[in-house]
């Protein structure tokens, strides 16, 4: 069982690495890049919102801050397009985290319901600031990032691999958080914050750190997307569509699980890219996207991954098969535990 899983993971990784070689068409690799970046953003969102249960609809704040930070750094240090801006990404991430700490400190003082609304308000403040501070952001005229000197056939390749690295890093951090004592604290906050506090979990600091980690990755992804597009406008850098898309991808896959957000993003992001490019009828993309979401949320309210896991467990139980491999039984128990934990939440 473990061998199968390891080989499966390696195969997926090999496929991801070889993807640009297999599909050279820039139209396809562009969709792939956006998919990887959205997957990264969703996994990062899940590190905070999924594990703690505080749903943030303001992640575009850090996405936009990342984009503007990269543009401003390139301008200030006179950096040309090419590989150099990729090296600035960790710095951009730190800048986004630096924004996240005071914002999180304010927003996390309130209850979960109010938190959602405050994140929306923060998002609007940043969008308005981007419009209203033309000295820094150049207002509604937008900013341009240096364009890389690569030809059209090669252009997407570096972006693809950098996006892949960011996604893998993000997923690794999410895995580490989920399996650490720190992550256990976050899950305790999600299930019962007061009890977690009384058991000695430093809830305030725990939430704030998760918020900053999440902002770090979302900031890097914002910078990458805007570097890839080449320009930056307040309405797109701070867009409500980003906030919502990320949350929906996570909900589709399963909020608070490790692989759920990844699965949700990998399914939804290509579809969304395809719909925006292909459909010429005004409004049809929104109708399809919205209906699909309604169907998913109402039919699979827990998300794809937890629902599948539950079905799998039930199917195995109904067959009455006790697997001789100890590991799989352990997994079943874990699934049942996870299920119990989630129901306790409702």
């Amino acid at each position: 069982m473990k061998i199968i899983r390891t080989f499966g993971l390696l195969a997926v990784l090999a496929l991801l690495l070889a993807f640009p070689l297999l599909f050279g068409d820039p139209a396809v690799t562009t969709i792939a890049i956006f998919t990887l970046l959205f997957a990264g953003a969703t996994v990062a969102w899940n590190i905070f919102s999924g594990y703690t249960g505080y749903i943030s609809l303001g992640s575009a704040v850090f996405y936009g801050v990342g984009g503007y930070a990269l543009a401003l750094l390139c301008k200030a240090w006179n950096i040309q397009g090419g590989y150099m801006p990729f090296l600035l990404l960790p710095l951009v991430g730190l800048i986004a985290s630096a924004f996240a700490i005071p914002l999180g400190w304010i927003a996390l003082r309130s209850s979960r319901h109010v938190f959602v609304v405050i994140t929306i308000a923060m998002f609007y403040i940043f969008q308005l600031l981007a419009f209203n501070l033309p000295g820094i952001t150049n207002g509604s005229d937008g900013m341009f990032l240096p364009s890389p000197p690569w030809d059209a056939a090669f252009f997407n390749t570096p972006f693809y691999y950098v996006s892949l690295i960011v996604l893998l890093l993000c997923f690794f951090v999410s895995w580490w958080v989920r399996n650490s004592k720190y992550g256990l604290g976050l899950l305790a906050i999600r299930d019962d914050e007061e009890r977690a506090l009384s058991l000695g979990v430093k809830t305030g600091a725990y939430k704030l750190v998760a918020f900053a980690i999440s902002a770090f990755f979302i900031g890097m992804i914002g910078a990458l997307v805007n570097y890839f597009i080449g320009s930056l406008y307040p309405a797109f850098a701070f867009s409500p569509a980003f906030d919502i898309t990320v949350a929906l991808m996570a909900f589709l896959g399963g909020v608070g699980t490790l692989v759920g957000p990844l699965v949700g993003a990998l399914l939804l992001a290509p579809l969304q890219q395809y719909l925006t490019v292909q459909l010429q009828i005004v409004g049809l993309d929104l109708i399809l996207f919205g209906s699909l979401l309604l169907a998913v949320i109402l039919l699979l309210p827990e998300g794809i991954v937890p629902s599948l896991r539950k079905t799998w467990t039930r199917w195995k139980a109904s067959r009455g098969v006790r697997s001789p491999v100890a590991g799989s039984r352990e997994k079943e128990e874990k699934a049942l535990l996870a299920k119990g934990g989630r129901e306790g939440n409702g």
Partner: protein
Amino acid sequence: MTLIIEAVVLGILTGSVYALMASGLTLVFGVLDIINIAQGILVIVGAYLSYTLEKYFHIDIILGLLVTIPALFLLGIGIEWAFMRRIKRDRVMISILVTFAVALVIEGLLNFIFTPNYVQLTAPYIDAALPVFGFYLPYIYLFGFLLSVVVLTLLYFLVYRTKFGFGLRASMQDRTAAALIGIDVERVQTVTFGIGVALAAAGGMVFGATNPFNAATSYDLISRLLVIIVLGGMGSLRGALFASLAMLVISDIIDVVWSPVWANVVFFALLIVLLLFRPQGFFGRLEGRKQ
């Protein structure tokens, strides 16, 4: 000085219209535990309905309310029946997503039917204005104010003076206890959702007459409405009224003394400062409702 008085008067008049839309939102939250993100787009649906009636059937926009308010009431009941009722677990969070998805579908439909071009409602009295204290007050703002006062008074009587309102407030306090003393909580919830959406129709007519709108305007609208209900305290009708007036008056004053571009920022910033000291809003209860 005249400018500031004008700003305050206009702020109160438009604030009353926001109070209409926000009380729908806060009422639904109080009774159903649902944050209805679709309220913004439903306001726009109300505006478009008035627009259609006016343009194709030549029905005056105020008379048209007799059609649009019941129509949106029914739409609300339909939405509640089709989607809200199915949410059993983690209502607040799931409802945000469901209502957002509903809003997306409606936005797509509106874009498809009416195209994304901006429109505005027209009526003979929209451009006319009444001179008071040295400035001109457009009649439509006065009509909007009167409409809001009438509708909010009716709502007050419905909630505090009728048997239905008794059931509504009981379900707001404790759903289980309300069900135990024989209140049909499900029916109360459905009707409340309908009323919340119907209030959007009334607000939408005035909004559409005073602002050019398209389907995407709903994003700006819902963010303001959410801020209003948080400021007032979620689930509090009094709070929604108070916060709407405060918000519009403050942002109109900033608009004239400083600059229109900062009016919104200052408002959102004030919200954050307030929440630092009073996380539950002006009239909210600190404790979440225990179910």
